């Protein structure tokens, strides 16, 4: 599961409070923040400095795999059993279009899906998070509450708590 964690986490009822606390925490030098929201919110992305995902690389890789596979199987199979029809070219590029397109799409989509699942699992199991029952059992993040998790050392607990409380966090907890 998650690596050992030291830090503070808080829950919020309002989105603007959450964003303001994130901005202030980042200003204070806390950059490795984890947030929880019931749905994707661009306001949180902006507050976090618009991070980018590596997913498009999976898609690009999948598309190249699919298109290469399409060309290889069509050329190989056509040359392996030559079927000349009405003097038309044996390897006909226009007729390759549909299968080239379909295989590119199917590979791009599945590799993107596997990449997404992998990255979600990596975040679930690889990112340091609070290990307490209270955090793990908190089941309102997907329902109607926002959350901010701040990894920090013992010395910073009070400072982080003060920022959370300034923005009217509902609950603030220390995790050692």
């Amino acid at each position, binding site marked *: 599961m998650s690596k050992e964690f030291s830090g503070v986490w808080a829950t919020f*009822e*309002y*989105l*603007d*409070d959450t964003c303001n606390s994130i901005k202030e925490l980042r200003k204070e030098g806390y950059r490795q*923040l*984890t*947030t*929880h*929201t*019931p*749905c*994707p*919110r661009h*306001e949180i992305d902006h507050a*976090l400095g618009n*991070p*980018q*995902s590596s*997913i*498009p690389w999976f*898609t690009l890789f999948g598309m190249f795999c699919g298109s290469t596979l399409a060309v290889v*199987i*069509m050329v190989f*199979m*056509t040359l*392996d*059993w030559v*079927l000349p*029809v009405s003097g*038309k070219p044996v390897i*006909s590029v226009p*007729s*390759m279009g*549909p*299968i080239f*397109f*379909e*295989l590119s*799409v*199917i590979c*791009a*989509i*599945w590799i*993107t*899906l596997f990449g*997404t699942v992998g*990255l*979600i*699992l990596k*975040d*679930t*199991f690889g*990112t340091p998070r609070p290990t307490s029952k209270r955090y793990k059992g908190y*089941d*309102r*993040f*997907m*329902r*109607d509450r926002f959350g901010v998790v701040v990894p920090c050392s013992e010395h910073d607990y009070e400072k982080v708590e003060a920022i959370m409380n300034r923005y009217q966090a509902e609950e603030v907890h220390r995790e050692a």
Partner: protein
Amino acid sequence: MSNITYASINDDILKSLEPPGKAWLASFLVIITALGMGIFAFAYQIRHGLEGSGINNPIGWGVYITNFVFWVGIAHAGTLISAVLYLVRAPFRTSIYRASEAMTVFSVMTAGLFPLIHIGRVWNFYWLIPYPNQRLLWVNFKSPLLWDVFAVNTYMSVSIAFFLLGLIPDFASVRDDSKGLKRLIYALPSLGFRGTNHQWLHYMRAYLLFAAICTPLVFSVHSIVSWDFAMGSIPGWHTTIFPPYFVAGAIFSGCAMVLTIMIPMRFIFRGFDEIIKIKDLEGMAKMIIFTGIVVSYAYASEFFIAYYSGAKYEKALFWYRPFGELKLFFWGMIFCNVISPIPLWSKKIRTNIPALFVISILVNIGMWLERFNIVVTSLAHDFDPYAWANYKFQWVEIYITIGSFGWFLMWFFLFVKIMPSLAVAELKEALNPPLRSAK
């Protein structure tokens, strides 16, 4: 509207996952009976061969291929709604897209059965797939029929992937709302999703890419299905208008099926009427108006080209369709697809739920008739008068068609009880977020 909150969306949608009531069980029994009829007829066909269907010489493609094209068409609306309308940020999409996506997956699963049923010797289905066989013969990559195998499989596979991706955060919502074994069951497909910024970041980027990739797929699949016909030299098939005509027809029938499914859902599940708003259904009605016009134009264009081209076989066929033995199918199609959507021009009708429901069913019937007209009448009346024939329905194909509706509805009924039938996270995203400054 103002009383909808993040929590109320959760509660209303997850309530639909409660154990089924008597009405659900009774309906499911009817559905299973319909499916049973189909399975029985298919078993009969395996034993006795295709003599149980109306297929004859020269009408080698009959009800099964009609059903195949019909179900692929129904599937179209789901991807259109989840991909194309997502990219253009259509506001009426959010409440209906999950059920439409499910509809897509189940209709492609239904469509995929028909080529297998149609080939008669179903145990030889794998001849469609390029594999190294003992005759060292490969499939013909220049054949539109093979393109269709790739297109439909890609479409099914991509629809399932898109559907599963969208479900990840909603499974997490169900997990957090349940206890015991149910919690454990939903924890597995939710992949530990807890709505963190990292998870949403990858999820949203993947969703956008899926939408972008699926958009051309919406147009390619039915275009390729249309080439099954258009690349043949039969009068009534060999025409360049087929791809756009088929795509518009597919969206037309798919939108109608969305209404046919969403209207009862809205009625059955309490709270859904606040989420699936009249204006969402009206949005679908507008899509039906638009695609209905394209389809009507295609009908008119086909007749005009048959006359204007001077091709006597085309002329003969387009005389045969409205005045030949199968004229009832033609006029039924015209009534359902051209005339019945006309009342939707009135806002009063577009916002009248019973009227929308009736029109959606008529359009579904009309689109089945359209596919029957295309597939069967052209083969019944090709170049050589000596080979002309009529098509007579047989009980086996009728039972199998009823069974296909049973198969489709069985999956849909299971879906509404197992998975959130409306998209929880996206509905929340469409709401104004809770802001202290707005208090």
